[in-house]
């Protein structure tokens, strides 16, 4: 559970003054909190007890598990390998997870792991000894039932479930004492491209997420809809190891066969040390320089075309059942900037919740300061910071003059990471447009966060409903940002998504983003096929920013005729025509099309364009037709023969995860929930470098006085004065 302090009351002498402008004087929120507390105590307690019970049943929550006899039982050890082949515009990945049971018990292990948000997971294999069992795609509930039945019968079984489009669990039942069981999943994913750079990203660790509690206050405000914003909060949480006390777990190896389809320029990774082996002009083999890495940060590989060899258009085709799948990748030309640039209103939103503690907070601050520096003369801006609460720096947009910028910079520099991540309210505040009639100005929201939240659906609905004329630019900060939230929020907000994974990417990527903010977008895009009966995903094309390509998967009977793309670049019309019969062969394009259709149906469901039933029916049909894991379908593999002897018990465990690199354990978890009991005798203040590095610092004592007596005296005095005054006047009047 992530921290959420009730109400900051007294800044310690160490901490800078709370950024809240008038927080201490606001009685309203305090009363609301009291009401929420009073009303929330009973259900919250019940839920707490249930969680505990569930954890006891699983016997999990820590690396060591207590069994009934009291002897600790260890979770299975996990080793993973990723083998990825990039073929032009797509990549096919095979992730092999080896679950090794080091105990003398029969064990069930559950591993929560991330995948790219646009991955189409279509295959799972379970390897027990020399037997390979290929999983079937089933409806989620049916798959779960098959798994539970096999588990009870003592058969080895594996179940791959999607918890979020970028978050999955693998459960493996009946791993014998001392045995190793392999689970292999495969997926298809598109290669990303922006500004001439191609990128492949492989997340390796599920970052701990903050799941807002359903509150009594929400119930009052939203009427009857007091539904839990994160109904599956237990499924997206796993035990996390404190890096200060545990060596990293879950080692991972990686190899990539890169077949770019064009002569390659640079091939780099900003996140890991890699070894690049040149196979030919257009092919490379990439491995990790250190052999294995701890699964604690996203892996990112970027490549560019050799000078002059960059293709401006990519057109690919694949034969699929009942027709052909086509993928068109087109980058509209970057127009010269218009003479008079359009004035902008920019709202910067910065996440200073606990999960941002450490390197992420520094990256976010540096990025925001760069954004402030680039504001032009006619531009206006505002800054919002949020954790479990939020503050707006200025009451409304202010001109980007020196005085205001100075104040904003001081405000940003003073931010410290702590608390929960209540993203909804600050997002709404940023989208609130007080001057919707000023269409001559661009309204842009730049949102810096790691996206470590569980209530994505709430966020998406709010963006779709309240975006107005604002454009939302998501900036993903840190070593393991929530790509699904970022990319989808940017799509719904008609902006773009920028990832900043390491401190040395801040300058370069922020510059690219600012260029996008300042350059005119490609708008009113349409795609017209000369052939009838073409099914594209998405049906409505997004706006594009400078350097971004349009990637359009489509399905048709036969790839022939033409595709005409038309739009406006900064007001000027633009058009291009592609001959579909010139398309090259590509791999996995049919799956990408199906995955894009599913994503579109999920969006339509969230924004109310489709009813829940209609969307679910469409998703289920696509998923079963193409064998894809989705919210509604899972992959399940069951070994034929029961192996666990009758009477031998099965111990269930959740595999522990690393804390994402650069995260601060104390900022996220406080002093350890879900920690083994011999807890650390010492805790360090997260935001006190001086205290961290000094050898033997004398104890600094906190502020230990409240001002309630002053308030009481002052309050009494004012009340008496007021009453006296009115009394005198009444007498005078009488």
């Amino acid at each position, binding site marked *: *559970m*992530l*921290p959420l*302090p*009730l*109400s*900051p*009351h*007294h800044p310690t*002498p160490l*901490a800078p003054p709370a950024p809240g402008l008038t927080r201490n*004087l606001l*009685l309203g929120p305090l009363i609301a909190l*009291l009401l929420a507390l009073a009303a*929330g*105590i009973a259900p*919250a307690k019940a839920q*707490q007890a249930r969680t*505990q019970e569930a954890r006891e049943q699983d016997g999990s*929550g820590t690396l060591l598990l207590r069994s009934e006899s009291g002897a600790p039982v260890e979770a299975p050890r996990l080793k993973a390998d990723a083998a990825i082949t990039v073929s032009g515009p797509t990549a096919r990945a095979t992730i092999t997870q080896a679950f090794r049971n080091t105990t003398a018990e029969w064990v069930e292990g559950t591993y929560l792991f991330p995948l790219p948000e646009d991955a189409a997971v279509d295959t799972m294999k379970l390897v027990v000894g020399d037997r390979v069992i290929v999983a079937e795609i089933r409806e989620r509930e049916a798959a779960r039932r098959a798994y539970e039945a096999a588990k009870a019968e003592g058969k080895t079984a594996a179940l791959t479930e999607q918890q979020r489009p970028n978050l999955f669990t693998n459960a493996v039942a009946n791993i014998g004492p001392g045995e190793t069981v392999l689970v292999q999943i495969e997926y298809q994913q598109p290669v990303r491209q922006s500004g001439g750079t191609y990128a492949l990203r492989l997340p390796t660790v599920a970052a701990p997420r903050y799941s807002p*509690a359903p509150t009594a206050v929400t119930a009052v405000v939203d009427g009857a809809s007091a539904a839990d914003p994160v109904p599956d909060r237990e499924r997206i949480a796993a035990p996390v190891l404190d890096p200060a006390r545990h060596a990293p777990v879950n080692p991972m190896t990686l190899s990539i066969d890169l077949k770019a389809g064009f002569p390659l320029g640079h091939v780099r990774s900003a996140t890991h040390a890699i070894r690049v082996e040149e196979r030919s002009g257009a092919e490379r083999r990439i491995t990790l320089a250190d052999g294995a890495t701890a699964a604690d940060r996203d892996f990112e590989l970027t490549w560019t075309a050799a000078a002059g060899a960059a293709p401006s258009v990519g057109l690919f085709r694949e034969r699929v059942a009942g027709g052909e799948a086509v993928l068109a990748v087109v980058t509209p030309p970057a127009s010269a900037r218009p003479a008079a640039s359009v004035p902008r209103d920019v709202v910067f939103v910065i996440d200073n919740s606990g999960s941002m503690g450490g390197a992420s907070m520094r990256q976010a601050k540096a990025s925001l300061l760069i954004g402030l520096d680039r504001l032009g003369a006619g531009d206006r801006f505002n800054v919002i910071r949020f954790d*479990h609460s939020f503050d707006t720096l200025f009451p409304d947009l202010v001109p980007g003059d020196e005085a205001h910028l100075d104040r904003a910079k001081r405000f940003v520099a003073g931010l410290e990471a*702590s608390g*929960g991540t209540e993203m909804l309210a600050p997002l709404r505040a940023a989208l609130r447009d007080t001057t919707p009639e000023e269409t001559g100005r661009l309204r842009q929201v730049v949102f810096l966060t790691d996206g470590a939240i569980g209530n994505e659906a709430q966020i998406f609905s709010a963006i779709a409903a309240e975006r107005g004329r604002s454009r939302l630019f998501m900036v993903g900060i840190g070593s393991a940002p929530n790509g699904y939230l970022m990319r989808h929020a940017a799509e719904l907000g008609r902006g773009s998504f920028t990832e900043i994974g390491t401190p040395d990417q801040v300058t370069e990527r922020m510059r690219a983003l600012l260029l996008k903010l300042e350059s005119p977008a490609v708008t009113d895009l349409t795609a017209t096929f000369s052939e009838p009966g073409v099914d594209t995903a998405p049906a409505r094309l997004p706006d594009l920013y400078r350097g971004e390509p349009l990637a359009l998967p489509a399905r048709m009977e036969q790839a022939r005729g033409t595709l005409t793309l038309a739009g406006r670049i900064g007001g000027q019309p633009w058009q291009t025509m592609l001959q579909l019969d010139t398309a090259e062969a590509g791999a996995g394009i049919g799956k990408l099309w199906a995955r894009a259709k599913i994503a579109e149906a999920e969006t339509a469901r969230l924004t109310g364009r489709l009813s829940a039933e209609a969307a679910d029916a469409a998703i289920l049909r696509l998923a079963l037709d193409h064998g894809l894991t989705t919210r509604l379908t899972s992959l399940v593999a069951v070994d034929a023969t029961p192996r666990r002897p009758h009477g031998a018990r099965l111990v269930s465990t959740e595999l522990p995860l690393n804390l994402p690199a650069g995260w601060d354990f104390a900022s996220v978890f*406080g*002093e*350890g*929930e879900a*920690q083994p*009991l*011999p807890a650390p005798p*010492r*805790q*360090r*203040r997260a935001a006190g470098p001086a205290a961290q590095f000094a050898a*033997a610092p*004398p*104890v600094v*004592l*906190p*502020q*230990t*006085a*409240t*001002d*309630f*007596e*002053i*308030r*009481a005296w*002052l*309050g*009494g005095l*004012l*009340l008496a*004065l*007021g009453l006296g*005054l*009115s009394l005198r*006047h009444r007498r005078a009047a009488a």
Partner: protein
Amino acid sequence: MSGVAERDAVARCPGRRGVTTLPALLLAATGLLLLAQAAWIPAKAALAQKLLEGAFARTLAEGTAQPPWPWADTVPVARIVFPSLGESYVALAGSSGQALAFGPGHVEGTPEAGEPGTAVYAAHRDTQFRSLGRLAAGDPIEVVRRDGRSVRFRVTGHRVVRWDASGLDPDAPGRHLVLATCWPLDAVTPGPERLLVRAVAEP
């Protein structure tokens, strides 16, 4: 004519009263607001202690740290008992302003009570640790830790120090306990001085 004058006077009268009662109303309203805020601080401290007591009991029973309310960023770590005063408070991990609003906080960087070194707990002088002034040398202090162990300390003396020059060494030899709060106890404005009640573990 006089009729008109009278009507004027009548008409003007309520207006004048409105103008003069407005500041009085504002004063009274602000006063009430401040009083309510003032009342909220000790009320919150008292309410939090009730919840913390429950969470600490669960911590002892379950053997794992239990947050006092679902969104809490801190957990109860110990119960501090003053047997001579008949008072007891549940202390929290950390001494941030947030934690101290609810109860005594275990100051970061100091060991747990009963471990070698100097364990420091701090609390507000106007809520939980108001009673520190009534502890005399020789009085017992009992600390129930979250692992269920109970350690008895005996008060050795008082000292007043500046917050940034406490002179407390968390790694000092022996098993010490220091309770800290703001000084002077009856002051109204926050100041730089702190009252330390020092105690040593009974063998």
